[in-house]
């Protein structure tokens, strides 16, 4: 009988709390009253990576931690802090990965240099080809 009950029990999922039950942070889902400040905050939040769901920005994510990050960003912008200073604060804690807006560093400069090199190369090749045609 006990074995049968256990067998039946196996068909029911025991719900497990995977997330907290706390209310969201004050400014997680509330916009700032000043539209200019809210715009600044929104622009920053769209270029900060959610650490829980890493292909989303914190503006797109409903993870509680993303809400906490949004709240902190909004509160700091309301207090007059510069968005880029907040980004620098986050990068100081989580590294460049947290920001979707790449900086030029000793590691990332090829990202910026390669397109310029390729465009120059293409321009030179095209000029040679058209130049030759012009000669004929």
């Amino acid at each position, binding site marked *: 009988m006990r074995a049968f009950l256990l067998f039946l029990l196996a068909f029911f999922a025991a719900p*497990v*709390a*995977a*997330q*907290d*039950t*706390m209310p969201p*942070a*004050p400014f997680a889902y509330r916009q700032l009253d000043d539209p200019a400040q809210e715009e600044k905050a929104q622009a920053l939040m769209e270029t900060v990576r959610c*650490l*829980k769901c*890493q292909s989303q920005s914190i503006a797109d994510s409903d993870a*509680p*931690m993303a809400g*906490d*990050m949004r*709240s*902190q960003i909004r509160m700091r912008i309301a207090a007059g802090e510069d968005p880029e200073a907040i980004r620098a604060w*986050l*990068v*100081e*804690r*989580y*590294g460049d*990965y*947290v920001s979707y807006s790449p900086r030029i560093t000793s590691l990332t400069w090829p990202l910026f240099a390669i397109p310029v090199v390729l465009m120059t190369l293409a321009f030179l090749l095209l000029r040679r080809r058209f130049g030759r045609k012009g000669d004929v």
Partner: protein
Amino acid sequence: MSESTKSSRWALWLPLAIFAAFVVLAVAGLLWPAQREVASAMIGKPLPEFNLPAAVPDRPSLSKADFADGKPRLLNIFASWCIPCAVESPQLAQLSAAGVEIHGIAIRDRTEDVSSFLARNGNPFSRIGRDDVSQVQLGIGSSGVPETFVIDGKGVIRYQHIGDIRPEQVPMILEKLQEAAQ
């Protein structure tokens, strides 16, 4: 055979070669997925200023000053709603039994939930702060629960362990604490 036919014969295989390279890349990506953990960039830096209220009535509150008495200790970031946090509690108990002081920060948690979590899994903490908006968690570059930080006697972050501490990792944590003591 002229030069041009030779080169065009090579070019014939080029799309297949590119496709094969793509397959290799895709299979490699499936077999060895990229590291998804975001390590803190705060190693070697002091803890930020913070002052958290007590999470449970029977343990005092937690502030930065509690880490600056010359003794290295652990800072464990946990939550009652986090399953791996319960899984690592025997390891924390083992570390506590070995004489390691452990301070805890409960992330987005209610007093009654933390109390029942500790009643179920044991309480290795000497102090527990309550961080309702992940403020300290963001301040130290932690991106989830559980995480354990080794803090030296001056309040400087020396090591970050991401995820639960497995039984075989306890000696490694003790070693990191010893390094922090030097």
